[in-house]
């Protein structure tokens, strides 16, 4: 098989997830040897047209134009992988889903009438079929490499969908919830970061998105009844980096899903 071609596309995002690819300092040249990076505007002036074997999509859908653009990206891509909290769950910018976007626009811009934006920020998978979703805000670059290798050799990526707690214990952290009373979201958050926050004495704030079989309501009940979490804290905790993720939205209530 010839080298699979790789393209990187950006929607509403901070660029951090695609930067992860450039942050693979040790592996970058080797990766560029096994993949033909044909469209990666952040890094290269070489921007070849599709079709592409593998497309990485960063960012969420927040404009009409992007809603159209993602359809075209899908048409051009054999395997389409979304990367990061924006692309997989709407990102922080999905906080607008819980508010009035025109009020948001007025708060930031003197002339909001020049803006063209949707009332919601939505995950890519709400618009097109996605072949794999890599969680994280930002994604873990080693997981990104695994995903690229997997898709270029035609297998499923070996990305665990268990809790952050699993990594937390394997790393030898002391639980900041049980031993520190901190409002840790590790039990409902998907592994992948290596249980970073508890390793630095702070509660997980859920940036890797929701794990499978997440018991969001049960965890928050405990945090509220036993660890002094207020209603306002609960809402802030639910509505953050993966605000539009379904299990969090359901427990927190509100949040437009469509536009």
């Amino acid at each position: 098989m010839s080298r699979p071609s790789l393209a990187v596309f950006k929607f509403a995002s901070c660029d951090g997830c695609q930067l992860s690819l450039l942050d693979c300092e040790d592996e970058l040249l080797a990766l560029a040897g096994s993949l033909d990076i044909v469209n990666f505007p952040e890094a290269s002036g070489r921007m070849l047209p599709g079709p592409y074997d593998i497309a990485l999509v960063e960012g969420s859908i927040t404009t009409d134009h992007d809603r159209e653009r993602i359809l075209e990206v899908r048409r051009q891509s054999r395997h389409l992988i979304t990367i990061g909290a924006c692309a997989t769950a709407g990102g922080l910018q999905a906080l607008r889903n819980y508010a009035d976007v025109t009020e948001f626009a007025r708060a930031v811009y003197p002339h909001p009438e020049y803006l063209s934006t949707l009332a919601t920020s939505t995950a890519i998978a709400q618009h097109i079929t996605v072949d794999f979703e890599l969680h994280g805000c930002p994604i873990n670059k080693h997981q990104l490499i695994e995903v690229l290798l997997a898709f270029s050799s035609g297998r499923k990526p070996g990305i665990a969908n268990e809790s952050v707690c699993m990594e937390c214990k394997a790393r030898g952290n002391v639980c900041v919830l049980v031993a520190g009373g901190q409002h840790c979201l590790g039990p409902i958050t998907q592994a992948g970061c290596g249980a970073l926050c508890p390793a630095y004495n702070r509660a997980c704030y859920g940036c890797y998105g929701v794990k499978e079989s997440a018991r969001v309501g049960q965890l928050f009940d405990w945090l509220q009844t036993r660890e002094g979490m207020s209603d306002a804290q609960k809402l802030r905790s639910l509505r953050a980096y993966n605000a539009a993720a379904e299990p969090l939205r359901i427990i927190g209530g509100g949040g437009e899903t469509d536009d």
Partner: protein
Amino acid sequence: MTDPWLPQSCGVKSCHRESRDVFTLSLEPPPAYTRFSAGQFNMLYVPGAGEAAISISGDPDDGDSLVHTIRDMGNVTGQLHRLQASDRVGLRGPFGRGWPLAQAAGRDLLILAGGIGLAPLRPVLYQALSQRQRYRRIHLLLGARSPADILYRQQLLDWKRQAGLQLLVTVDTADADWHGDVGVITGLIPRLEFDPNNCLALICGPEIMMRFCVKQLQERGVADADIHVSLERNMKCALGQCGHCQLGPHFLCRDGPVLPYPEVRDYLMTREF
């Protein structure tokens, strides 16, 4: 001390297609590979993809090749599918307890296979048919998704014609050329001629199929102790150490995959156990 986790590298002799998603992979046995018994399995390893438990589907008396029939279901099996002659794979084995064929001597032998479940039962056929006189009736009941999914078709027909195998096949969905049975395998059991008091039933297939087969056999008067099933669970080590293949007290990799039905009855009948 040899490391029980370390695979041996062995060469691919051939990899050929059986049906849309099933293929047969024949390997050169690695040095010092002990003779396997029917129903045992190997752990096949593809670098980068991992290991998968795969039953040995060939003739136990064939010392020259280790044959596996595999359904392309995901990572490892997908990569195995791509192998070609002279490629190499990792192998550990053989593992587990096979079919208690010796118990069938002088009795009717009922073999019930669903889909890829025929693979671990083919070694039984090789053995039983090569010593045909030891057994009374030998029935093979086979269920397949469609006629095109029937494994080892020619070989089964040959065995039926020449070796005294009684063959009944049913498919879930027929095509224009199919004149045989359509429907689930359990539908064939009432028609079967055999002695419920003097038989041994060996079943391998999807768990739901096995549950219904057992029910039918019980209705025909077969004792639970004469029924043996081959079970499947996730397996990472095949050494009884990774904990994945537990079914109640059993580690299927070590105590199974073939187990007498009475030993698993309670667990098989409990949802999600």
